[in-house]
Structures are given as structure tokens and as C-alpha cells.
């Protein structure tokens, strides 16, 4: 029964998404087009985050640690 209520909840969420973004009043081919474009954008965002964020965090960490390390080496 828990699975059913979870499925219902997701169905309700999908309905909310359709209502809020006016997909509920669009024709079916417009709905598919909108969903496809949105999913593509979301997929690209996720991919970019997966590929680039760890590298940027590592570089930023090195940059700041070098500054602090330089600062401590000067002050000591």
C-alpha cells in the first residue's frame, strides 16, 4: 500500500507540474515538445554539474589554501 500512495503522490506532483506550467491546456504534441525541451535542459544541467563541479571545487580549494599557506609562511 505504501507503494501505491507513493505512486499517487508522484501522480499528484506530475499533475501540479502540468497545471502550473499550463501543460494541462496545451495540445498533446505541444506537451510532449515542452516536456522534451525541459528534460533536455535539466539533463544538460545535471551533466554539467557532474562533470565540472568537482574540478572547480578542487581548484578553488587549492587557490585558497595557497593564499592561506603563503600568508602563514610570511607571518611565521
Amino acid at each position: 500500500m505504501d507503494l501505491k500512495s507513493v505512486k499517487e503522490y508522484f501522480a499528484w506532483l506530475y499533475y501540479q507540474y502540468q497545471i502550473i506550467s499550463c501543460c494541462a491546456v496545451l495540445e498533446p504534441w505541444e506537451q510532449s515538445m515542452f516536456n522534451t525541451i525541459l528534460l533536455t535542459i535539466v539533463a544538460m544541467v545535471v551533466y554539467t554539474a557532474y562533470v565540472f563541479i568537482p574540478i572547480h571545487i578542487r581548484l578553488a580549494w587549492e587557490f585558497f589554501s595557497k593564499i592561506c599557506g603563503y600568508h602563514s609562511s610570511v607571518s611565521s
Partner: protein
Amino acid sequence: MANLRGSVVTNGTLHNPKTQQHKWQSTDCVKNGIPKEAQQNRKPPFCDKPIFESYPEPPLYVLVLTYMGYGIGTLFGYLRDFMRSWGMEKCNAAVEREEQKDFVPLYQDFENFYKRNLYMRIRDSWNHTICSPPGPYFDIMEKVSDDYNWTFRHTGRVFKDVVNMGSYNYLGLAVKYDESMNTVKDTLEKYGVGVTSTRHEMGTLDKHKELEDLFAKFLNVEAVMIFGMGFATNSMNIPILVGKGCLILSDEFNHTSIILGARLSGATIRPFKHNNVQSLEKLLRESIINGQPRTGRAWKKILILVEGIYSMEGSIVNLPQIVALKKKYKAYLYLDEAHSIGAVGPNCQGVRDFFGLAPEDVDVYMGTFTKSFAASGGYIAGKKELVDYVRIHSHSATYATSMSPVIAEQIIRSLKLIMGENGNLGGRQRVQQLTKNIKYFRQRLKEMGFIIYGDDYSPIIPVLLYMPAKVSAFGRYLLKKKIAVVVVGFPATSLAEGRARFCISSAHTREMLDEVLEVVDKLGDLLNVKYFPFKKSGHSAPALYNEKSFDNEASFDEMNVQPEA
């Protein structure tokens, strides 16, 4: 310009409306423009309470999402327009002819764009065909569309016994033929239906005179004149009362008929903020100080146009303060009681009765018979000189066919029922039942968490839905569940405030209202429209729905305070 707080000076002190407690023990001869004798003799029932009208704001994300939804709709609208203009899709909308393609474009403004791309998609919620009298239950014919709402056809099926929350049937008088309509049948046999003439030529019947005398007695005014159509009453009679060189101050949410009449008259029109007495006073002062636009001469006449109950907001006009203002600044007041005549006031006499003011306080009364009286037509009432002038000069009397005698008799029958002649207290009971229904319905909707506009005594209850897809889903779902409401979208309201409008009738029983409320509750959860910004701590105790607590004003005020928390 003196600031408005400083306007509490000289004659007629005008207090801040929020804290206005009328102090009747003043030694001034005239306070707020209301003579002392009137204050002492008359005990206005509702005058002690300030008008409580709240316009609750939804959370900000709602407005953001609404505009986002419109943005997506607009993008798809551009796409479809592009496809239509490049021939990839058949164009069902109106276009200019080939030869006119180089002229000034006719269909490129925002209104036509909106109509083609956004309104067409949800058009099936409007223009239903009904096939029974608009009582508390009625029948709707089913219509389907094969091409996404460009064309419709009736399948022949009929939805029977749909609960009617959309008709303006406030006193429940719109019924099939019953024995109180015997006089209507006799009139039909004696006079026929058509009048085939205008008032000035051969179209004034003795039925009209009888109706006018009876109605003047009902409204407690000197004279009344009857017209065949309510819209034409406003649009054809305002131009004869004011002209060039006069000033019209009209509420920003006035009905189209009033706006049309004001524009046709040629006077200068200045709108003031809805039901906002400070805005009206500021405009009055500025206009009187500056005079007419180019010449600076004094205005010939100043006319304030207000309505009794506004049909989209459900708010009741702040009449005592507007009357005080008009007396202070020597303006005239035109009150359009289309929705409020018969539906508010302890004697069903409209907003003047509701606030307990004197009949001479309003200069021109106007109203229609379409709503509470279940007929059609309009009236203008007031002093005898005014009505005599209107009789001679009205465009409607000169050119439009007068009211059919059958309809006049129907209004007389409704009036006699309301006035309680022949012994029964019909009208009072009906309006009391209506007030009870209104209180109960508003109470329950507020507790459920919907945002509702309008005064606590007004029979029109707009439930705010904001997003366009929710507006259409609300209407469709409720019709599937056999409840009919009117949903309202962009051109009639502002862009972000889509709403569903419930009209309560005295013919609704408690069970009908409960049925509707249950469905609306579930629908509110499904669509997620319960935007009221308060923390709900479970459902209120059932003791609140006790009959007695609704007749007790004090406890209703306590309950009224609750959603503020």
C-alpha cells in the same frame, strides 16, 4: 496640497475610516454631513461596524508561478502563430483578406493574441447552454469539441440536476410556473407579449405605471422610471445627466455599462481606487481646486458613480462615507444597485437600507430587475424632478422598445412577494435565509483556507485561483461533479487574478451547500489552491456550525478575527 490627515478640519470632520466609531453625542449641528436629528432618530443596524473588507495576499511564489505560466502560454502562442502564418497549420482564427495584408494589421494586438492562443484553449468552460429555469438545480446541455475548442457541437445529452452556483438568483424567484404567477398568465392573455413601440410613442402601458408606483413605494423614493434593458439603462441615461464640462468620478472596477455611459456623455472621467474613500477625497479636492482641464473654470456638475455590490469582487460600497463626502463637496451620487437591490438590507431595499441611510442621501438610484427579481429590465429612481427629466430626455425612452407587459407583471409578482403583501413575510424570510447561507458558506471556505474577496454580507463569493490552467481545471472538474460555477479570467479581472465566482441564493439548502463545499474542499487539495496565509492547526470544532452561533453577531465577529492569526 494639504495632506489628507490634515483634512480632518472645518465642517464635517472625516475620521480615518478604520477607527471610525460614530459618536452620536456630538454637540455639532452637522457631523460628517449627517444631521443630528437623523442620527438620533434612526438606529442604523450596520453603521457601527467599520466595513471589513480584506484582500489577502497570496504567498509570493504563487504570483511568480502565475506569470511563469502565462509566459509559457505566450511562448507557445508565438510558436502557433508562426506555424499558422507560414502555412504549416490550418488557421481557424480570423485573418484579413489577401488584398488587405499590406494595410494596418487588425489582429496583432495583445487582446487578439490572447484570444487566439490562450482563451481558445480553455474556452469550453464558458457559454454553456442550459435547458431549464435557473433555479437551485438546473439542466445543462453537454457540448464537445473535436478541434480543441475552435468549434463545438451539442451531443444531445443533458446533465440533469446540476447545482447552480452561477446564476444571480439571490432570492430564489426564478422558478417554473407556479400559482404565484397566475397574474402573469392573465397579463399574457390580456396584453400579449410584444409592445412594438417606444415609451414616447405608443409604448407606455398602464402596467408600467402600476409597476413604477409600486416600485417607488418599495424603494421609498418619489418616482421611478422603468426601461426594457438593464445595460441600456446605464449607458443611455448617464449621458443625459452629465455632459461636457462636468466631472465624473467613477470607481475603477465599475461595470462596462457605466463606463460606456460615462464615455458617451463627453464629461471628464477620473477613476478612483476601488472603494477607497481617501482616493476619492483626494481626487475631489484636486479637481475642485484645479477646475476644468484647459480653462480652469469651475465644473458644471460633479457626479460620483458607484455600484452597490461589485460583481467581480463581491465588495459592498462604503456608502456612509461616500455620502458624507458628497455632502461636504457638493457632488451628486449615482448608485447602481444591479446586484444589491433585493439581496442586501433587512427589508430587501438595497445598500441604502443596509446602511440605514435616508432615501434623499443618494441622488440617482439605478438598478436592474435581472438578478433578484428574476425578470429583465432596469430602473432609474429618485426625486420627481429628476425622473420627470429622465422621462423626457432619455434616449432609451425615445428609441428603445419599452418593457414587455408580461415581464412587468413578473416584476410586480416578485415585488409583492418580497414586500410581503397578502400577509406573508416572504421577502424578509428570503433575505434572512440568504444571509444565513452567505455566512455559512464564507465561514467554511475561509476555514478551509481559500482566499476569498468581498464583504461578509455580499452574496457573491470570488475564490481566487490565480493560475490560468487552474481556473479552467476548476470549472471543468466541478461540472463533471454536477456543480456549475462561473470562472473568470483575464479581460474581466486583472491578469494574475483568475477566480471562480460563487453566487449564493436563498433557495440553496444547507445540504446543497455542504455538498458543494465537500467537492470544493477536495478540489482545493487536488489543485493546491488553498493559499490563505495562516497556519492551519487541524479542523475547527464542529460546534462552530451550530445554527445559533450564526445569528449571534458577536460570536461571528470572533470567528471573523480568527484567520488573521
